[in-house]
């Protein structure tokens, strides 16, 4: 099984091969280094004129990519650590996300900004954050997060999601990767015999639904994305085996615009929702999902909860970091509370 990292790398190569208007800008991209997390390895050798290694200038490189996109290219920007995206916030919010609408739909702006978020590597408060919630409420900006899952043929996997975003997009898009997710295998139905596995949504924004194979009807629906979806997958297996509590998992790959129909259909069966994310709790993704679900379901939503990182910076020390970020045990405990 390829890893998420391999899949994303293949997706980038596919996009470069398919369209010569695709360019990549970012720091330390050149081979043999190939970017700090190696997602971009091999690209500068295969497409030397289209991979531009930049100075340490996140705002500048995103702005340059915005200009390239407005004039007919399909640039991709790699921000080395997700934490650094704040340096480009003005470009993303006041420029890229605005142009198409404020210019009365006279322009398209096919731009993908990729960046790894997430902790659990001891990098400390400024290299471990999960900041995408800051960009969830920006009209004109899509936000995608690949899942470590795919159809039997690899479809809907991380690489395909990325390649489609690069080749098919017409507006700016933030593509949120995760440092620990890079190392995960991309699971397919064949590699997960303990789970029933469905792919819904659309090819541009697949939604994966997982439940324990042969289990009774689920009592709780968990909504998650990114690396937390993997922890939630492990949690629902343990809940079934150790506690005979049955949960299903709805995994989003597009956070904005949020497609809530698949989730709401699931909630009409279970009536209980737990959202799980690695970002800090307050004003996070889960708050939006929960508000949507409550609006759609009203009294059919019997119980709900949000699990997220504590409202603290992410510490460097391992035990402290584990205490701040949500774990498999935290997910199990939150689900048990919902069904109690």
């Amino acid at each position, binding site marked *: 099984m390829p890893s998420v990292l391999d899949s994303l790398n293949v997706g980038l190569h596919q996009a470069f091969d398919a369209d010569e208007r695709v360019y990549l800008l970012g720091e330390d991209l050149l081979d043999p280094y190939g970017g700090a997390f190696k997602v971009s390895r091999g690209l500068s050798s295969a497409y030397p004129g289209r991979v531009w290694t930049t*100075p340490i*200038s996140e705002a*500048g*490189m995103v*702005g340059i990519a*915005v*200009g390239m996109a*407005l*004039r007919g290219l399909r640039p991709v920007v790699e921000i080395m650590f997700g934490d650094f995206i704040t340096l480009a916030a003005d470009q993303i919010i006041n420029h890229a996300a605005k142009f198409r609408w404020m210019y*009365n739909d006279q322009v398209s702006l096919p731009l993908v900004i990729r960046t790894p978020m997430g902790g659990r590597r001891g990098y400390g408060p400024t290299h471990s954050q999960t900041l995408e919630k800051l960009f969830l409420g920006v009209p004109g900006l899509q936000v995608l997060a690949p899942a470590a899952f795919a159809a039997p043929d690899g479809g809907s996997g991380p690489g395909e999601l990325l390649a489609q975003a690069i080749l098919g997009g017409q507006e700016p898009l933030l593509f949120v990767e995760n440092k620990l997710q890079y190392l995960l295998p991309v699971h397919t139905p064949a590699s997960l015999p303990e789970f029933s596995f469905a792919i819904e949504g659309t090819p541009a924004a697949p939604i994966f639904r997982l439940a324990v194979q042969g289990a009774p009807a689920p009592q709780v629906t968990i909504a998650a994305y990114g690396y937390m979806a993997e922890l939630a997958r492990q949690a629902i297996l343990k809940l079934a085996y150790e506690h005979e509590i049955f949960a299903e998992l709805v995994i989003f790959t597009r956070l904005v615009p949020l497609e809530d129909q698949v989730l709401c259909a699931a909630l009409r069966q279970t009536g209980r929702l737990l959202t799980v994310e690695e970002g800090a709790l307050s004003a996070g993704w889960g708050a939006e999902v929960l508000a949507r679900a409550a609006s759609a379901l009203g009294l059919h939503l019997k119980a709900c909860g949000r699990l997220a990182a504590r409202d603290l910076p992410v510490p460097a020390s391992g035990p402290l970091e584990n205490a701040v970020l949500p774990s498999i045990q935290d997910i199990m405990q939150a689900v048990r509370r919902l069904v109690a």
Partner: protein
Amino acid sequence: MSQTAHNELYLALCRIRRFEEAVLEKFSSGIFFGTTHTSLGQEANAVGVLSCLQAGDVVFSNHRCHGHFLAYGGDLRALFAELMGRATGVCGGRGGSQHLHWCNFYSNGVQGGIVPIATGMALAEKQLQSERQSASVVVAFLGDGTLGEGVVYESLNMAALWGAPILFVVENNRIAQTTPTQLALAGDLSARFEAFGIPALALESSDVLEIRTAAAALLDQVRAEARPRALILNTWRFGPHSKGDDTRPPDLVAQIKDQHDPLFIHGQRLEPAARAAIETQVQEEVTAAFQQAAADPFPIL
């Protein structure tokens, strides 16, 4: 230069002047939304630089963009309509005074951020040169106040490193909103470009011909070498930053208008009858454009 060419330049200067005067004059009537930043006194910069453009060239302007838009060839009625929030506006009323896009003209109202974007546009034009079969260049307009934004220097660095065919035009009107340049700008303005290996030419002029000659030479270099250049235009703002916020002493403003009026300077080169005819023509155009825009419908969402 022929008398016809002189007349054309004067017509372009006059159009900006009368448009901006009409905007300020009518603002208190409540017909325009939001705010506005007029380029009164700076008309020669817009006309001098943009009269050198070739087909396919790209312009990125800033909050003070009306003059650039009109000098680029933009329509008076569409610009009035945009300020009035009408469906017939340049951007259908979505953008307003600072947010224009038409053909290869763009503007945005946040300081500094347009500079990397214009640089990226220039790099895209260079990459697509063979496909487009033209060597298009980009003109980016900055104010002196914009030089306080850090992203400007990230952009200059990459523009020089990667050979962006772009002309950075700094309109130094010596005051950023209400802050005089000497309170905001350390060191030498040209040196900020030269530090990145970008040759900079500074002019102390409100003469459209002088500005045009300098811009034409620099644009030729940008086009031929695919390298950035900078043109520093030391200029004078006649009006307030936006509407009623001019903190300069009135007698100083009067003195500025008396000594540095681009219309007066260039108008002396025209036959008096031709000059009067142009002024009458522009007055009629502006009045008609205003009335048409005022009768245009509002957009619906």
